[in-house]
């Protein structure tokens, strides 16, 4: 289960509204490599993880991603607070405004609504962990691209924090993959699905006896 803590993982306090920037940053809310996809991906993949360390890592990183989703929502909310109709038009925010006013809707920067097609749950931990490592790098690149458009230190600071988290998570998923393959016979790396074909752990079990 989940318990809410009434604080952000890292503070977001933006003084200057900037609807153009909000429209770019919202991609990390509901875009192809965003935090909603990240949290759903890890929290869904954890069910079929076969090794304790992997269950814990997917569970705890997936939970952290929900905190990142909240931070991105806070950034978008604060960047679009108290906008005038003139500002909305002048900054090209009208195409978003017409459908969502200044609500925070999970969509990409190009306006494509969030879809579960952005993520995969393959039920094979080797495959899923490779996807997770790629996902962290894709999110890191997206944050790098967002930073190209940021000149407000109030926005740069939390975005840099989120970018760094992608790198740490990539590291943890890399270790998870290593933990898994260390438990497999080198001959059956890709011959078996370690979640489904339980016999690929038999050698390890026999060693324990």
């Amino acid at each position: 289960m989940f318990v809410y803590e009434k604080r952000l993982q890292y503070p977001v306090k933006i003084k200057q509204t900037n609807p153009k920037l909000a429209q770019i940053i919202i991609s990390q809310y509901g875009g192809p490599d965003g935090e909603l996809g990240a949290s759903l991906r890890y929290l869904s993949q954890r069910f079929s993880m076969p090794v304790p360390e992997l269950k814990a890592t997917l569970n705890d990183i997936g939970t952290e991603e929900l905190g990142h989703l909240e931070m991105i929502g806070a950034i978008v909310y604060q960047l679009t607070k108290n906008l005038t109709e003139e500002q909305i038009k002048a900054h090209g925010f009208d195409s978003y405004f017409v459908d969502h006013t200044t609500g925070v809707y999970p969509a990409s920067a190009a306006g494509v609504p969030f879809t579960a097609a952005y993520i995969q749950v393959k039920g094979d931990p080797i495959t899923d962990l490779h996807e997770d490592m790629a996902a962290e790098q894709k999110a890191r690149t997206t944050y790098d691209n967002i930073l190209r458009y940021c000149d407000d230190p109030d926005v740069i600071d939390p975005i840099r924090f989120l970018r760094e988290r992608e790198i740490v998570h990539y590291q943890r998923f890399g270790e998870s993959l290593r933990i898994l393959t260390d438990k497999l016979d080198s001959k059956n790396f890709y011959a078996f699905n370690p979640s489904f074909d339980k016999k690929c752990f038999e050698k390890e079990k026999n060693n324990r006896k």
Partner: protein
Amino acid sequence: MTSREMLLRKISTYAFAIHEYRLFLDTHPKDEAMIAKIAECEEKLKPLKKEYEEKYGPLKMSNENPRKWTWVNDPWPWEGE
């Protein structure tokens, strides 16, 4: 920065350090030095959280004052206030 924000920032710093140690321990569960570091941070975090909740209301619903309901009070974390 208000004194409330300052206190919240201190809380978030220790809470983040603890979170990082925990993620590390998920893939290195036998690292006792890291487990000890969590205890060190918890010790610093506990009085800060207590001070914050006494002054500004609960961080978790379960820490709500038993006689009045202040959980609903503004500001909420995303409001930047």
